[in-house]
């Protein structure tokens, strides 16, 4: 193993190292409030390594680990997300007397797993990275150990186990047909030109999609989302909804473009159907929710559906030119990260003060805290996809990709769903602005969560006004794709 390989792996090594350091420091540090600050400071290390690798196009470990702009894009995104979540977690984690270090450590280890998912090209390694992130996340989901949190953890554990089993079965079938677990070699070794000619390969691909579908919370593995999101500590919910989805899409893009790129016409239809079902299901179910976390959970299923459009729109790739689909996916994931994290952080800020996550208890929030109400409204508007916010551009790019790929029906389905989703997002805004407040008590923003809210909502607004900064990165990240 040459040293160069270790350097290429340095973001992951350093983030796991930071996790160790935080867990060990927890044993000695008396003032636990220092732990998140130290975590954020030390996160500069993996971020620095990641950025220093920007622009390199290299492979390590016999091609298993690939460092390209695509993986760097996701690593920066994931480190950003975990930083924001750490900032926002402070009040939640302060509730424990012990195990605060473990909380941050597990967050970082989950991130390491997700970063590896975005950067590896070999099925076994991908699977292990996925399990690393999932197992850490399970412990985080059940961290409170109260009835709801434990139930969430248990559901997450059992269902992730089932989906992992299905995915492994699929991988085993692909291995049985192609004789290799490396994505590049699978593409070379695939014996047929169409998936329909080889039933095992077809079933294997379907099973793999099902397994990753769990990570991105799309149909048919969406049923865990509402319960788990509701019971988990809210920062962890925010983390799961954004980070695990981003890495899941990264690995889906990588696997399908790289290993099964020749069969794109087969799976693009599969993803199209899954996209429509996911978004319709998520949006319709979200209408009836009374709990804001459950509402955001169903909305996350819907958004997984929108992003799947980008995967389905593989034919939008002009030969030698731009790949609108993957670009749209990357743009959407980043936009969604800012928006959804923002929404969740505002919910944390409000819920920590009023002690409730029911939508009706947000009544009159515009009076009690105009700033928070305004920011939540901004995030919700962005989730709908209305112009001043970044969500608008994200949807525009994706729907455009669908049209370019001659899948107009997907764009239409997306548009109809956007209209449906507007109903329940706007209902929250209506409650906040038009319903009378039960008390006049002000809801104040405390510094750490305020910083997190500021970071994310600034992003929503900034990239909403100047989307080309982000788009430029997304284009560069997918330029060498599939790499």
């Amino acid at each position, binding site marked *: 193993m040459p040293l160069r390989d270790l350097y290429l792996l340095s973001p992951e090594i350093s983030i796991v190292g930071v996790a160790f350091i935080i867990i060990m420091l927890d044993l000695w540090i008396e003032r636990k409030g220092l732990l998140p600050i130290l975590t954020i400071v030390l996160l500069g290390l993996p971020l620095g390594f990641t950025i220093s690798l920007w622009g390199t196009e290299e492979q390590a470990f016999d091609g298993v680990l690939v460092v390209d702009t695509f993986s760097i894009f996701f690593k920066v995104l994931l480190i950003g997300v975990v930083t924001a979540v750490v900032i926002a977690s402070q009040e939640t984690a302060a509730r424990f007397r012990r*195990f605060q270090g473990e909380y941050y450590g597990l967050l970082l*280890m989950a991130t390491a797993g997700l970063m590896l998912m975005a950067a590896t090209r070999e099925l076994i390694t991908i699977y*292990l990275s996925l399990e690393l992130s999932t197992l850490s996340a399970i412990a985080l989901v059940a961290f409170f150990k109260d009835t709801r949190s434990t139930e969430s953890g248990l559901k997450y554990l059992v269902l992730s186990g089932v989906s992992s089993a299905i995915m492994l079965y699929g991988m085993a079938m692909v291995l049985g047909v192609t004789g290799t677990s490396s994505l590049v070699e699978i593409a070379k070794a695939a*014996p047929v030109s169409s998936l329909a000619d080889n039933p*095992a390969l077809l079933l294997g691909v379907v099973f793999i999609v099902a397994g990753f579908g769990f990570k991105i919370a799309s149909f048919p593995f969406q049923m865990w989302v509402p319960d788990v999101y509701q019971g988990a500590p809210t920062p962890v919910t925010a983390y799961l909804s954004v980070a695990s989805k981003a890495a899941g899409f990264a690995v889906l893009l990588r696997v399908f473009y790289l290993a099964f790129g020749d069969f794109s016409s087969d799976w693009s239809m599969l993803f199209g159907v899954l996209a429509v079902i996911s978004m319709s299901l998520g949006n319709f179910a979200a209408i009836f929710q009374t709990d804001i976390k459950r509402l955001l959970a169903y909305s996350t299923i819907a958004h997984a559906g929108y992003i799947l459009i980008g995967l389905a729109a593989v034919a939008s790739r002009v030969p030698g030119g731009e790949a609108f689909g993957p670009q749209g996916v990357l743009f959407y994931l980043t936009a969604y990260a800012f928006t959804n994290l923002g929404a969740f952080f505002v919910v944390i800020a409000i819920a920590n003060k009023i002690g409730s996550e029911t939508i009706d208890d947000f009544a009159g929030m515009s009076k009690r805290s105009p700033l928070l109400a305004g920011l939540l409204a901004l995030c919700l508007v962005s989730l709908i996809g209305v112009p001043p916010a970044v969500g608008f551009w994200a949807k525009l790019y994706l729907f455009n990709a669908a049209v370019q790929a001659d899948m107009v029906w997907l764009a239409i389905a997306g548009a109809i769903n956007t209209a449906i989703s507007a109903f329940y997002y706007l209902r929250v805004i209506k409650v906040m602005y038009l319903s009378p407040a039960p008390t006049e008590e002000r809801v104040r923003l405390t510094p750490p969560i305020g910083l997190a809210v500021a970071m994310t909502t600034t992003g929503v607004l900034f990239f909403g006004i100047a989307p080309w900064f982000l788009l430029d990165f997304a284009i560069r990240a997918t330029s060498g794709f599939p790499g």
Partner: protein
Amino acid sequence: MHVGTGASIAFWIMAVVAVVSASGVILLKDIFRAALLLVVSFLSIAGIFVTLNADFIAAVQVLIYAGAISILLIFAILLTRDVQEGNPSNRLKIPGMFMGAVLLTALIVVFVNTEWRLSTEAPLDSTTAALADLLFSNKFVLAFEIASVLLLAAMIGAVVLARGEDE
């Protein structure tokens, strides 16, 4: 690869035992007996590994599954209250069985109709060293290291979740 008669006989015995005991696991009402049948299933799968010349995997299968996982499973059963009542009946039994049957049919159809890539190489005489060489080769060492971090994360998670109620 030519499969000898003895290996075939062994395979069929193991396969039938594995399937029958696995069905027992889900059909029996007594959880403890179900867990014991799970052990039988694990052991027969280890036997199938032996017929495949995968002796190291077979030993590991017995060590990890029959020796550790199933024991922890039984341990958990013994610590559970009201275990005498057995498995509660399930509303979804019929749909579950139907889905299982559909999946089974699909898998059989797929497996029969697929041209699998069969290895033409002779089975290794000793698999242990070859496995180690592969596992620590440049290609899989990353997966190996991820697995160790994964186990560490699982351990930390378990410690966190096993903390006392008062903290």
